[in-house]
């Protein structure tokens, strides 16, 4: 069970991420960062803000807009024993470099029978809610979690973002670190309440595979991640006014997946709602429901899935609002399983 971490100092999620990266870069000369617009610009979503000023261009490298070469170069540097952090600006751009991501980064450890390690962090921005249409708004949690060989991390708060980043950089395996744009605390993309949290100044790690029960409840289990943790919590507040007590679980990592926390909750509440900003078919919602069905079927009374219907993400505001699960949708789904 999670414990409240007391810290006076509040940070945005992007500041918390950067703080962990800076700490690791100071501690370990082998850690470096590269990506498009990560140096002077500080990352389009402020994911690398201020790092170039401290570490210079040699360790915070702007690269050509050519994902295959620089993500693949990250693989090569990692195999040589360095610890690159490589940013793919939008997860939607994965296609141009997927061969390096999937056929090299994710598979070389296995194909080498464990003799090759790829200690690399691939950071990437995910998520919609700002009308950027179908090539800049996806989350694709399911795509990356579906591919074996990579660990997949999705922070929802500043506290988690820092601890998970420390862990990601220190991990000897490739980690895909997916940060939701709407949670970063950008001036031009206001975050909901929640992601800006107290963050200790000192280093700390959050282990992978440990979900966080963000809100305890007895009547239904809401399993989610990323932005939708906050939407689920908002829904839970509304439900509480109606006397429905929802438990909200933040998965935090998809690989490894904390099935025990999910099952424990489902055994307690008997009702499961899974919320995901990714596409519905073959995605996180199906995975969680299947896990519950396999191991807690007797306790399961009702199940609902909320995810993007299987359409590309539309541009127009009312259309995007229609397809992205909102707090009201989550509340309705929880009421539906009562």
């Amino acid at each position, binding site marked *: 069970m*999670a*414990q*409240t*971490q*007391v810290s006076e100092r509040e940070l945005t999620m992007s500041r918390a991420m950067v703080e962990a990266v800076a700490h690791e870069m100071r501690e370990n000369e082998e850690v470096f960062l590269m990506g498009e617009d990560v140096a002077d610009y500080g990352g389009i979503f402020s994911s690398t803000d201020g790092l170039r000023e401290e570490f210079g261009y*040699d360790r915070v490298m702007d690269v050509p807009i050519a994902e*295959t*070469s*620089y*993500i*693949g*170069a990250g*693989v*090569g540097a990692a*195999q*040589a*024993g*360095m610890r690159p952090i490589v940013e793919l600006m939008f997860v939607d751009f994965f296609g*141009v470099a997927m*061969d*390096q991501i999937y*056929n*090299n980064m994710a598979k*070389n*450890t*296995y*194909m*080498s*029978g*464990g*003799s*090759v*390690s790829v*200690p690399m962090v691939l950071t990437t921005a995910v998520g919609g809610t700002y009308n950027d249409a179908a090539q800049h708004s996806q989350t694709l949690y399911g795509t990356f979690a579906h591919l074996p*060989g990579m*660990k997949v991390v999705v922070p929802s*708060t500043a*506290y*988690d973002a820092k601890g998970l980043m420390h862990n990601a950089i220190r*991990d*000897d*395996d490739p980690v895909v670190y997916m940060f939701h744009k709407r949670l970063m605390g950008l001036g031009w993309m206001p975050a909901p*309440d*929640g*992601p800006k*949290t*107290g963050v200790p100044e000192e280093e*700390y790690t*959050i282990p992978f*595979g*440990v*979900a*966080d029960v*963000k*809100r305890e409840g007895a009547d239904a289990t809401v399993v989610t991640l990323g932005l939708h*943790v906050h939407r689920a919590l908002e829904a*839970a507040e509304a439900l509480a006014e109606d006397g429905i007590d929802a438990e*909200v679980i933040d998965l935090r990592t998809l690989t*490894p997946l904390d*099935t025990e926390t999910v099952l424990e909750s489902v055994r307690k509440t008997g009702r499961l709602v899974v919320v995901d900003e990714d596409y519905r078919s073959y995605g996180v919602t199906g995975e969680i429901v299947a896990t519950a069905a396999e191991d807690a079927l007797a306790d399961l009374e009702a199940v609902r899935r909320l995810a993007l219907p299987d359409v590309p993400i539309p541009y127009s505001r009312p259309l995007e609002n229609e397809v992205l699960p909102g707090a009201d949708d989550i509340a309705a789904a929880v009421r539906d399983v009562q």
Partner: protein
Amino acid sequence: MYEDMVTARYYEERLQEEYLEGKQPAFDISAGPIPGELHLAAGHEASGAGVCIHLRDDDTVTAPHRPHHVAIAKGVDLKRMTAEIFGRETGLGKGKGGHMHLFDPDVNFACSGIIAQGCPPAVGAALAAKKRNTDSVAVAFLGEGAIDQGGFLESLNFASVHDLPVVFVVEDNDWAISMPKERITDVEDGSRRAEGFDMHGARVDHDDACDVYEAAEEAVGRARDGNGPTLLEVQVHRRMGHFMGDAEGYRPDADVERHQARDSIERLAADLRGDGVDEADLEAIRSDAETRVDEAIEWAKEQPEPDPEAAHEDAFTNPPNGVTEEEPAIAAGDGGGDD
């Protein structure tokens, strides 16, 4: 070089024999002691040997789907490589990689079975060398069929803009599987592509190992001295089909005859004789190579197949254990927004 070349040639002859066992008379790719595809490099030996002779164990080489001659020249463990090709437990990758995916970290050798995709990791190894201020270099081998791939072109640019110690070796065997070179490029001299990236380019017009040696010496030296990357194209000859079982219906007989008539190994042997090397010495090198290859193959065949349970291992260096009963070092929390 001669030793590496005759070793590679004989090795592949022996692999071919082993590969065809159980696959005749009807060719079944999954039958026999060596499963899967097999891409042989007969006719490519001069490029592997002529380049890798300038490399040390701490230099990185990435090879494509046709890797054996390069692996041998780089000093990859012959027995464990062979065991890997036979899919055995003691293979380089414990039987998980196979002939297109050979990894030997002891000599910094890696493969990618996908066209041009070994280029970016080689660039990354060179980047690591530069960042660490070592004088090690990286060499990416690829075929001329890979020169239109983004992974190759992006890597040339990346290596050039950062002055990285990397050599791209294009093995031009005139055939991208069934596609003749003239149908994939108007640039006959592929090394000219280097000009577009403001990097050095060189071409060796025939597979004379001594010419490759000299061109590679300059390219590797340039990289090692901190003077940036080189694109080196070497004309080689594909004496076999693209893969074992390829009937090569697309290939004119004259082309096959022309390639069979040129043999870099015979040429090098003639040169060596001309330099006064005794035939007996050449024979001794060949004989030693054959002995080592035969031993490697016999050893590999005696190795056990992997335990099926091992298929579940090695996806990660630090396998995720899922949830333990222990509390995390610092338990998470606070982030919920509900407090």
